[in-house]
């Protein structure tokens, strides 16, 4: 469980995170969505106890993140998968982290096997591909079998198989009652991974909702229709609850009715339907609509130089 209350972080004149309040609950995968530079990484750094909030509070499993006596048991995190000593082997990287908390050696082998790095565990981690580095970062986050897992852009750099693997892994962690908080700047990625959603833009909370509700609210479904008599059909369908718009190619875009209803209405009026399709609500469009202000604003403000890692992903 992560509880964030009125969290604000300023770097000099730049406000990276402003008055954020939300709760990440155990037992589900919560996505953390926002355009690049929205403040996701800054928020995650405060959750991990790395940056001090300017004001407001963060608690992880009921305590401030730096107050845990067994931190890897409470909270596992991955911010930057490239943050390894380049010539130290993956095994020794994990062993050094494990030893601080008194985690036994055999656990290091367990997580190496679990993320599929067995064959390369003895190699310098600096030579790893981005996908391998992601797996190493996830292995580090899971060393202590923590109750809360925080991952910054975990699928970045993974291939299709890797993305599928991490989705199943995250779902499994959630099913075991853990709090799973995963950031991304891509809506489509989050929609397939998470069930709950926190959206921020410009450091402010935009939405705290389930993924299903977010999609339904942000992008209502529409029906695309082409017929032998478009004008008559448009007049027939128009009502206070239904809007009919002309697409550029001569088709009509009808919202407020199902494809079946549109087809039945045309048939009843003797109009021949040439094309009828339910338009999929575009997740990316919904997300862009919601965060557009934040993106536009961002181009006029300076980002904190030390925070470029989020930009380069």
């Amino acid at each position, binding site marked *: 469980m992560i509880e964030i209350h009125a969290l604000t972080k300023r770097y000099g004149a730049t406000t990276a995170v402003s008055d954020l309040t939300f709760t990440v609950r155990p037992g589900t995968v919560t996505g953390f969505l926002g355009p690049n530079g929205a403040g996701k990484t800054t928020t995650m750094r405060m959750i991990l*106890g*790395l940056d001090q909030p300017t004001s407001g509070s963060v608690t992880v499993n009921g305590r401030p993140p730096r107050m845990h006596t067994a931190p890897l048991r409470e909270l596992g995190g991955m911010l930057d998968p490239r943050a390894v000593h380049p*010539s130290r082997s993956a095994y020794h990287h994990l062993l050094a982290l494990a030893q601080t908390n008194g985690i036994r050696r055999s656990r290091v082998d367990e997580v190496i096997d679990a993320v599929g790095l067995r064959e390369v565990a003895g190699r310098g981690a600096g030579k790893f591909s981005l996908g391998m580095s992601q797996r190493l970062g996830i292995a580090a986050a899971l060393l202590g079998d923590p109750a809360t897992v925080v991952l910054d852009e975990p699928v970045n750099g993974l291939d299709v198989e890797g993305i599928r693997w991490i989705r199943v892994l995250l779902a499994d962690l959630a099913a075991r009652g853990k709090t799973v908080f995963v950031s991304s700047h891509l809506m489509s990625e989050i929609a397939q991974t998470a069930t709950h959603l926190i959206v921020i833009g410009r450091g402010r909370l935009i939405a705290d909702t389930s993924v299903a509700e977010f999609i339904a609210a942000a992008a209502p479904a529409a029906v695309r229709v082409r017929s032998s008599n478009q004008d008559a059909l448009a007049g027939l369908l128009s009502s206070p609850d239904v809007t009919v718009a002309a697409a550029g190619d001569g088709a009509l875009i009808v919202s407020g009715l199902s494809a079946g209803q549109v087809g039945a209405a045309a048939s009843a009026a003797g109009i021949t339907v040439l094309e009828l399709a339910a338009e999929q609500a575009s997740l990316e469009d919904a997300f862009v609509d919601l965060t557009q202000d934040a993106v536009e604003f961002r181009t006029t403000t300076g980002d904190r130089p030390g925070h470029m890692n989020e930009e380069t992903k």
Partner: protein
Amino acid sequence: MTTWTENQGRIPVTVPAYSQPQRVTQARVLRSEWTKLRTQPSAGWALLSAVVLIIGFGILYSLLREARPPHGAAIKAFDPASVSLSGVQLAQIAVGVLGVLLITSEYASGLIRASFAAVPRRLPVLWGKAVLLVVATVAVSLPAALVTFLAGQSILGRQHLAMSLSHPGVARVVLGSALYLAVAALLGLGLGALLRSTAGGISALFGLLFAVQIAAGFLPGSLSSEVGKFLPATAGQAVTSIHPDPASSLAPWTGFGVFCLYAAVVLALAAQRMRRGDA
């Protein structure tokens, strides 16, 4: 990278549970830091170069003084122990840079965030590095200093300039050389942790060890030596000569104490920034 692929097919998607008790202690962080130190090749190279510099330069300078021995009044002031251990002057660069790198390499790669997430109180990481740095530096430089002292004396002995290990002050000089190097390494660690930049840390280290002495040399005569006594390297090196000149140097252990004080102040400032600041 020849055999590994993302898609191995047999990768399990569950991570086994782990329910053993966990807790962070200073001793555990020390063990972790030891794992890091022994798997960081640059540390081994730095320590090796310190040994090579102590032995190599010490023997070289002993040979030089054997070829050009002191005459007349200079014989009384000749310090054969310091001559054979003159390589310490160069070795301090190697161990000082090691001290800087031990912490700035973690800041440069971002590894420090993983270290601090595992040890949220943070300071045990700094103390763990400090303890290992002292142990490792003394462990390699004390035998190197002893060997070089003996080799140097056998060279200087051909001109009847040698001192034995039992001569008053000699054991202190040999031990003091190793301790001086350990504190120089700590100074590097403190500066690295304070400035969080390899270039900045090394520059500051060179400034403290060398530049301030050069600057003090521009002061008028007596003031120059009065101020000079208290500068880090001059103070610390009092312990590495048999008869430190009271006009330009503090008493051996007093000087060493002043040197330790410099390192302690820098480490305290670094600890303050590490504990309070953003990582």
